[in-house]
């Protein structure tokens, strides 16, 4: 039987794990490649629209599913909103050309006559 102190000593004295052979060179190479990619993205990002687009796509492809989903929903909402707001618009009469104005007046006259016909 061991005392609890012996067990605690055993835990504290355990050596740190050694990675398998060839682990660190591979690790350094892979990490270096990832950091290089980040560096090149960082330098591209500061150049105009292409950089901005790259930044957005970088954010999308980061391993953050919730953020990516939130950004996707936001983008979708913006698109839907812009489509929905493209309804009939009011134009000032002052901006119409002479011909357009005449046409509008004829249409209005016809409409009111038509309504009268329906009413009577």
């Amino acid at each position, binding site marked *: *039987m*061991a*005392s*609890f*102190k*012996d*067990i*605690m*000593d*055993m*835990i*504290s*004295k*355990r*050596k*740190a*794990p*050694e*990675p*398998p052979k060839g*682990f*660190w060179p*591979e*690790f350094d190479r*892979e*990490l*270096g490649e*990832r*950091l290089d990619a*980040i*560096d090149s993205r*960082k330098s591209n990002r500061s150049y105009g629209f292409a950089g901005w687009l790259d930044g957005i796509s970088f954010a999308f492809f980061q*391993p953050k599913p919730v953020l990516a989903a939130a950004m996707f929903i936001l983008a979708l909402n913006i698109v839907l909103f812009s489509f929905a707001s493209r309804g009939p618009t009011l134009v000032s009469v002052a901006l119409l050309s002479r011909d357009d104005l005449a046409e509008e007046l004829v249409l209005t006259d016809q409409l009111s006559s038509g309504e009268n016909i329906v009413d009577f």
Partner: protein
Amino acid sequence: MDPELLLIERARNGERAAFDSLVDMYKGKAFALAYNFTGNAEDAKDVLQEAFVKAYLNIGKFRGGSAFYTWFYRILLNQCKDVLRKKQARIRVLVEVREPADEDDEAPVEAVDNGPGPRKALLNKEIREKVDEAINRLPEKQKITFVLRHMHGMKLGEIADMIKCSESTAKVHLFRATKNLQKALSPYIKTEGGGEYGVI
């Protein structure tokens, strides 16, 4: 100026070579921590790489209120939790990571048994397995606190900073972890003449 602080400052200013030096400084210890929580070298490598990438992306946010390695270990621990959560596994802590190269490589637990060699070795192995099992069963915060304190020699203040709680709360986690371990290992513990083991 402290050379490490200088490296951090240079890395914050975007100097890649300085960040590479920080990686070299901490990768060994950080690997041990990642291995303790993931239980295998492949997962430990992935977790460690992801943590360094996150640190590189966010080093500008490091204000120096805590030590760099505490800040980095926090990222690493969160990464370990994420990976293990994805694997639907609880945090596994491996006390026994590798077999010693020879008999003298690691001191055996004293007073385990006075019997013949093979029997003693068997008992030692059995106790190690029970210790691993008992640590694995600890609640997450107790486990993290225990591992960082006793297997990585971190101070309570640093641990508190890492798990975002007060030092006294970290002390309570450690106390409870020690008590729970003592309870779990009671069939293997010699009680005569031994008082309770302190937590610090």
